[in-house]
């Protein structure tokens, strides 16, 4: 009888250091609070490799330096209504506060730029979007926001923000739905 009781107790005693070790390991948040090393204010962004189709440029607009050559077309940094070119672009994206050169780089027209001035290729335009839409950017990076094509357990193709949201008018356009299902025959007969 005594042996039967002692067996499990002995096992628990033997496992105790291991069990308590497990418990101590679990809350990483608490460890973070204890550690006193200050976190850097701006963490360097982890490099993100994204398989995505090329950005959806309108026909004939890229490269921008085809037209925007400094000696032919000197840069005018004054905010204004465009009339000679790009007058088809209607900005509906915080247009009260922003205009072209807040995202497009005045120095290198084939690039965008971040608020810090760091140039960004059009293929990485999501970094520009992510400056304001941080929460969406985070969800997109982990695969929760946006469409994915490919393998659920392997290589997948992402879409850039601009494939679904026009950067100048980002609201998602409404769509015509596919046809409604046919009602069951009994239902049709009674209507």
């Amino acid at each position, binding site marked *: 009888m005594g042996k039967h009781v002692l067996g499990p107790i002995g096992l628990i005693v033997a496992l105790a250091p291991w069990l308590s070790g497990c418990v101590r390991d679990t809350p990483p948040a608490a460890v973070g609070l204890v550690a006193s090393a200050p976190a850097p204010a701006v963490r360097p962004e982890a490099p993100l490799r994204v398989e995505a189709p090329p950005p959806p440029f309108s026909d004939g607009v890229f490269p921008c330096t085809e037209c925007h050559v400094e000696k032919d077309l000197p840069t005018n940094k004054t905010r204004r209504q465009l009339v000679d070119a790009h007058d088809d672009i209607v900005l509906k994206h915080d247009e009260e506060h922003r205009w072209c050169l807040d995202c497009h780089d005045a120095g290198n027209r084939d690039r965008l730029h971040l608020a810090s001035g760091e140039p960004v290729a059009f293929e990485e335009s999501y970094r520009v979007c992510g400056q304001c839409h941080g929460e969406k950017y985070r969800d997109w990076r982990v695969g*929760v926001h946006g469409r994915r*094509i490919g393998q*659920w*357990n392997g290589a997948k193709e992402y879409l850039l923000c601009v494939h679904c949201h026009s950067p100048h008018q980002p609201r998602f356009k409404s769509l015509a739905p*596919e*046809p*409604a299902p046919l009602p069951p025959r009994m239902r049709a007969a009674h209507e």
Partner: protein
Amino acid sequence: MDDKPASVTRRKFATCAAAAAAGWVLTACGPRRLHDVSTDRLRQLIGEMEREYTAKYGTQVTVSDAGPMPGVVFGYALDISRCIGCRRCVYACTEENNQSRDPQVHWIRVLQMDKEHGVDFSHADAYYDSDQVPQENHFYVPVQCQQCQNAPCTKVCPTGATWTEKDGIVVIDYDWCIGCRCCMAACPYGARHFNWTTPGLPKAELNPSMHYLGNRPRPRGVVEKCTFCIQRVRAGRYPACVEVCPVGARKFGNLLDPDSEIRYIIEHKRVMVLKEELNTMPKFFYFYGT
């Protein structure tokens, strides 16, 4: 009067024994459910299926017998704050899974609901027919098989023709289904569909990439339903509805992989299941991505 029970004669015993042996032999050699047969026999049956469908539809058909992957349980999440009710998923599903076009069989029903009432099936309309979606003051909840962990449909099947695979997909053996439709009555989500007539599937619209538990052509008089596109997901691909969704509202992955999209959603977003109170424990989740 003879009080003693009649003794079993040698002749009677021999007859009964022979009958029992014959019965056992007949049951053992007769047809079996696809999940009971040996691997060799399954390959043989699948070869027969491939030949039959290739001849019938005039294109080279492949029928996969891929089994569940170890360490994988599939889960699905749908972002109700994103879905615009465009029904692209409904028709992509139909094409991928060889559903009957006439009479129409859809595995996905998109329900239009009032924002005023929230997720409420008594205020849902599957037959909405607007020019543009989304309509103001409405939201959309697509419903398909919820792949329940505690599935009522598999419990009521009198022939054992439907069961849950190890990767969590609820499947149907179309050769073993007798069409009693008990499972349809048991399913609280209306996710199972019956072939009242021989499915009308034009030869040109056949998807020749099939799985024996999924999108192979169904005969008349059997029940069918969503299998998470078993022919695609067991080959590592996303289901067809996930890839077609223009707003990226549909998410899919391995519930046992802590780094998967689906686990991120369950751990970080507001998540719900339909008709939670029924304790069906769906592996199909609805969430609010915003």
